[in-house]
């Protein structure tokens, strides 16, 4: 210590000035550091931090657009959007939360309110963010909450628009339904947000972009505890446009009533435009149950229902066309000159081919038949012969030309193609050559042949209009919310098959006699005062030995054949063409015939037949290039 002190004694007394200088140097260094830090935050990191500041204060709230309405052809509403009431609670606004919850649970008759708030908090609900406690309140619940409002601080009713189908299951497959957008949809649709509705099926799906409109948004400034202070910016929503359909509400209703409880489908088309007048499929479903979320048990019930209520049989049901296919044989045979109206054949009730007998539906046979009577009485043996004359590939070419075995291109998802067999098709499909005996089945619309009801409706329409294949359309116009027309959809002729007027006359007169002659198979569709032209058909369900036809009525329901009826009317200037199938009903004339008759009757009650200038188009009419089906 002594040495230490002595050495210190030799040192000078510290003076203030140099120490102040050292202090100042340090101070300058610190202040410069502070300035550099400020430069870093305010200049270099400015954008990032400014964005964070905005994110702090701005909440974005979307304003979903009102979905467009759907009308029938006479502007009668079919689908609209109605307010639905949900109960929400802002727990922070309730001074005595547990008492409020208790009261609310009592009024709503449910006991999960506390749990819902807890769950929302667990998911990181920000303060003052409302919690949904009950959806789709019924009227008595709404009234109960309204009248007890003072006892329920923090609870309010939230109005949400919900899709409403006015006639429940009417045209359900055509209209479709909406549901909440899925996570998968969200990835591909940037404009959608969780909780949005999206068309899932039918028109709702295929016309989604028209109906949806553009959602708007609000930027709301909030403070640190989440109170909403003011509206910063608002982009108003643009409501969706309305869709005016081509279907007629009354006709649709009659069609569905006529099908009744049976499984089946009906498509009615305006043959001069391709506009669909009615499209029914049964069993159906009620699209209202999807609005606002379907319960999983209801969904399971729908998809496991053996009647497949979600299937639109009009475009997804594929059935052998049965004897309705004889119309194609006739057109093909006459146009190919392998057949004339005078060609006759003897029907003894069956035809031996190879080493087995192919039966006619009429056991005792038709005797000597020419073309006209063969169609009217639907003689199978006659058309076995026509089939042999034509060969399967001619039949296939004409079928394709007339739009069979091809998608019609209707704006609905999952339309089925069906099958029109040919030798090439069989080679490709089974790596096997075509056996001439198989042509016999094809000629009467059995075997591999399978079509959808809409394809047969198109066939009837082509016979009616002279060979023009219109794209089937069910939307004729798009209107804005104020009623102004946004867009109209003129008919689209997709194909024009050249059919000689004489051939058309022969086919039409035979079809008219199917319904109107006393021995016609389609007598059940006859209407007083209007000549309906039609053709019956029976689609075999069970492949049975042709010789062993049992009495239909003796079979259990699920093995019974499907009944077809295709028709158009009036025969001289057609306004409506229809195809109808009733599953497991046996003969088409007696099952589908009355359904078609009911629809025809309703149609002509609403639209009395016009006489005069509107003669059916033939041959060269239409804009599409005539296509010779034999060119390939």
């Amino acid at each position, binding site marked *: 210590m002594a040495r230490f002190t002595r*050495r210190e004694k030799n040192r000078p007394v510290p003076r203030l000035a140099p120490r102040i200088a050292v202090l100042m140097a340090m101070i300058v260094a610190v202040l410069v550091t502070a300035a550099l830090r400020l430069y870093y935050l305010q200049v270099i990191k*400015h954008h990032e931090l400014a964005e964070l500041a905005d994110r702090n204060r701005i909440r974005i709230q979307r304003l979903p657009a009102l979905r467009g309405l759907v009308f029938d052809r006479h502007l009668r509403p079919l689908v609209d959007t109605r307010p639905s009431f949900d109960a929400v609670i802002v727990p922070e606004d309730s001074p005595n939360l547990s008492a409020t919850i208790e009261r609310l649970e009592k009024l709503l008759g449910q006991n999960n309110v506390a749990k819902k708030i807890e769950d929302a908090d667990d998911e990181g609900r920000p303060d003052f963010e409302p919690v949904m406690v009950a959806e789709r309140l019924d009227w008595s619940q709404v009234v109960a909450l309204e009248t007890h409002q003072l006892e329920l601080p923090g609870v309010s009713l939230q109005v949400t628009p919900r899709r409403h189908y006015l006639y429940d299951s009417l045209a359900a497959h055509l209209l479709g339904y909406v549901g909440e957008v899925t996570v998968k949809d969200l990835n591909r649709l940037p404009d959608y947000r969780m909780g949005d509705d999206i068309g899932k099926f039918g028109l709702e799906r295929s016309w989604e972009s028209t109906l949806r409109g553009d959602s708007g948004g609000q930027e709301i400034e909030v403070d640190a505890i989440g109170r909403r202070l003011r509206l910063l910016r608002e982009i108003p929503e643009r409501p969706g446009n309305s869709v005016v359909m081509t279907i007629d509400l009354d006709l649709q209703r009659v069609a569905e009533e006529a099908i009744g409880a049976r499984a089946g489908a009906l498509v009615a088309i305006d043959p001069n435009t391709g506009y669909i007048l009615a499209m029914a499929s049964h069993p159906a479903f009620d699209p209202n149950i999807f609005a606002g979320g379907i319960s999983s048990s209801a969904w399971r019930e729908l998809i496991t229902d053996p009647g497949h209520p979600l299937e639109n049989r009009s475009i997804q049901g594929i059935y052998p066309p049965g004897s309705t296919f004889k119309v194609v044989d006739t057109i093909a045979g006459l146009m190919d000159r392998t057949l004339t109206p005078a060609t006759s054949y003897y029907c003894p009730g069956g035809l031996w081919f190879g080493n087995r007998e192919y039966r006619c539906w009429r056991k005792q046979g038709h005797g000597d038949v020419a073309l006209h009577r063969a169609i009217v009485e639907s003689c199978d043996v006659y058309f076995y012969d026509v089939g042999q004359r034509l060969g399967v590939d001619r039949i296939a070419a004409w079928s394709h030309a007339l739009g069979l075995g091809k998608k019609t291109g209707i704006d609905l998802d999952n339309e089925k193609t069906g099958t029109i067999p040919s030798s090439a098709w069989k080679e490709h499909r089974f790596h096997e050559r075509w056996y001439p005996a198989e042509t016999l089945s094809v000629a009467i619309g059995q075997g591999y042949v399978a079509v959808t009801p809409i394809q047969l409706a198109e066939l009837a329409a082509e016979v009616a209009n002279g060979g023009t294949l219109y794209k089937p359309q069910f939307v004729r116009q798009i209107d804005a919310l104020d009623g102004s027309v946004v867009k109209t959809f003129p008919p689209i002729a997709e194909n024009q098959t050249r059919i000689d007027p004489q051939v058309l006359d022969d086919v039409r007169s035979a079809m008219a006699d199917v319904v109107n002659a006393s021995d016609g198979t389609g007598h059940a569709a006859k209407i007083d005062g209007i000549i309906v032209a039609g053709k019956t058909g029976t689609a075999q369900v069970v492949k049975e030995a042709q010789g062993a036809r049992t009495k239909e009525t003796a079979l259990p329901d699920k093995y019974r054949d499907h009944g077809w009826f295709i028709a158009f009317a009036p025969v001289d200037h057609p306004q409506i063409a229809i195809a109808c199938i009733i599953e497991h009903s046996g003969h088409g004339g007696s099952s589908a015939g009355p359904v078609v008759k009911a629809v025809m009757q309703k149609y002509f009650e609403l639209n009395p037949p016009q006489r005069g200038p509107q003669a059916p188009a033939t041959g060269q009419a239409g804009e599409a290039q005539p296509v010779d089906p034999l060119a390939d």
Partner: protein
Amino acid sequence: MAAIDRRIIYHFDWTLFSLALALCGVGILSVVSATWGGRHHGLDPLVVRQLVWVGVGTVLMTAAALIDYRALGTYAYAFYVLAVGMLIAVAVIGHSTGGSRRWINLGILNLEPSEVAKIAVVLVMVRYLREEPPKGGWSLLHMIIPAMLLAVPAALVLKQPDLGTALILMLITGTLVFVGGLNWRMLMVLMLGAVLVAPVGWHYLKPYQRERLVSFLNPQSDPLGSGYHIIQSEIAIGSGGGWGKGFLKGTQARLNFLPEQTTDFIFAVFAEEFGFFGSVMLLGLYAALIARGAWIARHARDRFGSLLAIGFTGIVFWQVAINIGMATGMLPVVGITLPLVSYGGSSLIAMMTAMGVLISINTRRYLF
């Protein structure tokens, strides 16, 4: 006192006076911003009170400038005892807010004795250090008394708890001891000692103080808890950008995202609205004030005056450094006001009086 020497008027340090008032002006602007759009429409009562304090402070600053600072040496110990007494009083009858007892309610003013303690510690240290140091500088033995003089108020302040003021007391004592002539070797020993004592100090910190330190080192560790203050303050400052969002247009402050926005985080309020430009101007004002203080210390007539100037300038510097360091996320959050700018009567009046003393020191170098 009756007759004021005309030379006092003539040599009055208008530079320092103006700098102090300019900073008070910045303070009022910032308090207006920080309270704008709150419960009260227009001017918040806080602004009115701050205006009153600036008025009172200006009077006291002028009065202090006119008084001969050498008298402060005579009353240093008495003042120190008074301050310690107030700190004891606050511990007993103090008024507590937010878990700490810091104020004595005097009716018109909630007196904060820790602000008085800062002045008292400066006075008593300068009083002790005004003697010429021995050759080689003050040694360990000489430091026993200052250490004790520091320990009593520092312990009382820590007890409140007010880590920030305790830190300022230590830093200002250190500054004075250093400038006053501490042995270099001692300085090294003290600094080494501080490093070694740090872990022990950690042990004595309250949980929330530790949390602040941890969240300072990693603000994202608890973004809604302690880290929240640092993050929100950085967002406020950074979102101001180069030129700021404009007066009364800062969203972070107006919408209450900033904590303690009239006091500890007032710098963030200012920086958000006036940007990098404004912040650097404010730093410049402080730099000018500090430079003026150092100049006064350099040119004071006596050692007592020099050290006194260093003491008060030192308070300003350390508070500015720690407050801005905290607001910009360079230092952990400790409750320290931005001198002359933060809202608060006690700190404003203490600081303005101290500035008055600096003026007095500068003025009187011509008088004797």
